[in-house]
């Protein structure tokens, strides 16, 4: 990647006379590089398509995802023997159209994946910067929190929370997010410990910047790479976690389709009809790949650091 950037920088010299004097602003340079970045475009494209499907599900889905047709249950996809083109991806164990369920499932799964990973990031990064930058008793307190979080089995905690608060999509998002911040914390805390010793932090202090200004404006931008990597991992983890919850009956309330729930339900019939697991699995895989490509791409086009 590093070499690619070097090459790209040579053609950054913009023809516009005003910008020739200053060079491109970071935003313009990133856009320009994004135009040559296939991975970023691919990831963004895939995510956009999935987003459109999720938003326009009522119009794009060929059938009602809740409509059961028990006489046509466990149909294989159309291209397999015994399939019908009426149900392109077949039907599930209750005879519901699988394609429609996957399209509707995109809504729930993307919401849960992105939402929970974001909430986790907010908690973990905030605590990580506080622990790393301020140190002292704050650091010890945060570390104690981490130890507690790691000591209690997270599934047990989630189950308790959902049971106490009640069962809804919002609750699932918050509960999963609130139990998946340890990675963020560990990584940002370590990076902050390293960064706070660098001279530019001392320079900001000497300019009269407050501690919060330093934490937000000087340290946080340098953590973006690490945060992005963990974010892409956590999206997948959150979606699968929701599947586990749904499997236990604590996740998304039952008739609502979500990919995780579909995988969980499909498991019972997996040996007769593997497509029930494979198809939502593929959808999940594509979503995670898209987020990964996008994350890597954004990092590549925004980072200029050729050294690290």
């Amino acid at each position, binding site marked *: 990647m590093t*070499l*690619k950037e*070097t*090459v790209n*920088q040579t053609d950054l010299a913009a023809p516009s006379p005003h910008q*020739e*004097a*200053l*060079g*491109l*602003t*970071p935003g313009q*340079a990133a856009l320009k590089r994004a135009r040559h970045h296939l991975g970023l475009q691919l990831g963004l494209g895939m995510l956009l398509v999935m987003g459109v499907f999720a938003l326009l599900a009522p119009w794009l889905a060929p059938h009602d995802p809740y409509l059961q047709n028990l006489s046509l249950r466990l149909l294989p996809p159309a291209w397999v023997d015994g399939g019908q083109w009426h149900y392109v991806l077949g039907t599930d164990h209750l005879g519901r159209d699988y394609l429609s369920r996957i399209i509707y499932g995109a809504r729930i799964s993307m919401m849960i994946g992105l939402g929970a990973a974001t909430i986790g990031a907010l908690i973990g990064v905030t605590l990580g910067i506080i622990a790393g930058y301020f140190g002292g008793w704050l650091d010890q307190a945060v570390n104690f929190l981490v130890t507690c979080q790691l000591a209690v089995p997270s599934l047990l905690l989630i189950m308790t929370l959902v049971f106490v608060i009640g069962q809804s999509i919002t609750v699932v998002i918050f509960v999963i997010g609130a139990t998946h911040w340890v990675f963020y914390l560990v990584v940002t805390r370590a990076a902050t410990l390293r960064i706070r010793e*660098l*001279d*530019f932090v*001392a*320079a*900001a*202090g*000497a*300019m*009269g*910047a*407050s501690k919060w*200004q330093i934490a937000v404006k*000087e340290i946080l*931008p*340098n953590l*973006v790479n690490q945060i992005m990597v963990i974010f892409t991992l956590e999206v997948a983890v959150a979606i699968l976690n929701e599947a586990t919850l749904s499997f236990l009956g604590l996740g998304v309330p039952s008739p609502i389709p979500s990919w995780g729930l579909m995988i969980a339900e499909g498991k019972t019939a997996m040996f007769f009809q593997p497509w029930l697991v494979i198809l939502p699995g593929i959808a999940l895989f594509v979503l995670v790949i898209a987020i990964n490509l996008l994350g890597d791409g954004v990092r590549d086009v925004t980072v*200029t*650091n*050729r*050294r690290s």
Partner: protein
Amino acid sequence: MSTESLLEIRDLSVTLPTDSSALRAVRGVSLDLRRGETLGIVGESGSGKSMTALALMNLLPPAARRQAAAIRFGDDDLAAMGEKDLAGRVRGRRIGMIFQEPMTSLNPVYTIGRQLIETMTIHGGTSVAAARRRAIELLEKVGLPDPASRLKQYPHEMSGGQRQRVMIAMALMNEPELLIADEPTTALDVTIQAQILHLLSELQRELGMAMILITHDLGVVSRAADRIAVMYAGDIVETGTTEAVLSAPRHPYTQGLLECVPGYREASARRLGSIPGIVPSMTGEIRGCAFAARCPRAVPRCHQEDPPRRPVAAGQSDGAARSFVCHDPEETRGRGFAGGDTATGPAIRRGGDSVLRVDDASCTFSVRRGLFGKRKPLRALDRVSLDIRKGEVLALVGESGCGKTTLTRTIMGLQTPDAGTVTLAGRPLGEQPARQRARLIQPIFQDPYSSLNPRQTIGDLIRRPLVINRLGDAREQRARVHRMMDYVGLPSRVFNSFPDQLSGGQRQRAAIARALILDPEIVICDEPTSALDVSVQAQILNLLLDLRDELDLTYLFVTHDLSVVRHLADRVAVMYLGEIVECGPGEQVLNRPKHPYTRALLDSALSIEPSLGVPAPDLAGDFPNPMNRPSGCPFHPRCPLADQRCRQRVPATETLDGTLVKCWKADTPPPSGPLDVRPDHNNKEDAAP
């Protein structure tokens, strides 16, 4: 010195493939080295000097390609030798190597004894017991006391100087015929540098080794090398005896380098010469002389044709051929790299009103060893008093660990002293809000790679102090940034660049612009040039002096480089173990030092004097660990003048000829003539725990 040739390199080239083209790190280098001789390879970073040495032993990075007509070493041709032979018979056996970083070149998980013994037994044919005997003998020789017990120590138990001594012993285990020392003293303090160089030259004489000394420091090479090869952009541009090359340089680059060194010309010159631009990266097709773009004497021919290598017919019978590569050697005496207005420098103003006072500031950290270890106090500052006057350059000198950084942090208000006060512009620093303090005092740091936030563009970086202090609207701020960039000589096209797209010198300029944009009274320069190449150092020093005159600044200049101090300081303060041991007018302190430590520092500083050797070190041992402060005068364990009184009682500060000194023996005249070389100095090295 025997005249037998030991090493003969012909037409050595190293190419490193990059994505777009090949980087030609070394381009057709030819070198000769005789037995017992020291060859100094000098050059700035990126000139290919380390690559040349690594290519000798085929230790290049995996992708690099090496080509050579011949590398004759004794009777062998290293260019034709296979990897197995090279590893088994030459590397570490006939050619020893010392690296720059003593902290990282020893394996931290093995005892030094094991590492030393292994270098010998790994080649086979030596018993462990014999290797052990040899290790003890060599550790003794490199000046480590009680060598037998040292063998059981781990690298972290030793100080930097001691580790470098171990590295030297390790390189000597197999009695190599050639020792390659790659910047052996760059990471060490000046006093330790002198000790190590002295040790190297003594050992070399004793063992009859040849040595290749790679360094960027012309002072070091002038003292330690018999012959010099000056490298630029992968080629040797000038070579000859040290004396001849340094006293009458023929190539414009050699000349330029020398002009850049503070104190090489007259000490009175206000501006240093400087070489414009930076070392080019040698990718793609190279036409003409690689130096042409930076050369003030370049003629059209220089850009088109490769310059010929011209021997200088000095009629030297010993075959130490002197040659250089340049089209236009005759004009050597004409246009040079003069920094310009040497005469028009404004009168030096000194002794204005005091703008900043430090009174009896002390700073103690408590350090805990391990999780349950006892907390021990580390006194970083011990009742320091200092006074900075309007318009002056006050140099703060001392070795690493002496508390310089703590003092500057205290002055900037980033560290609150336990006792004592800092008064800035008539008011105690502690009472002033951070933003008000920021507008009076600004720092410039040593390492421009870590002092600029890699995620901010140069324009944003320089503007940041204005944003934090809410000065002016966005348009006004931008205008000020552009004006400032102009002042410090940054082209406006880097406005939207990130720091890593700039060269080291440009980054330091950006750091200077950021410090000056608030229009501060005092600028604290913390070793602002020690991370830069000599030619860039000169540019930055000139810039700092110009800016002082234009913007009416006061500098507190923290450095360990005494030639820089001599060049620009009005007053000098010398620090040792958290105390200021001597403070007074620059001339006074540098020419008639009162404190033995100042004297030792001055003796250890290596100015360019080809006729002089490396001075025998006068200072015993290493810088002590600040955790175990010696009793009495903290300097007494290393002091040649110390007696009973020094060991027991802390000296008070007294004034002698306008200089503040903290020493019982300050009025004792310095030992005349050559410094007393105390025969037992090696045995007193007991400083680090």
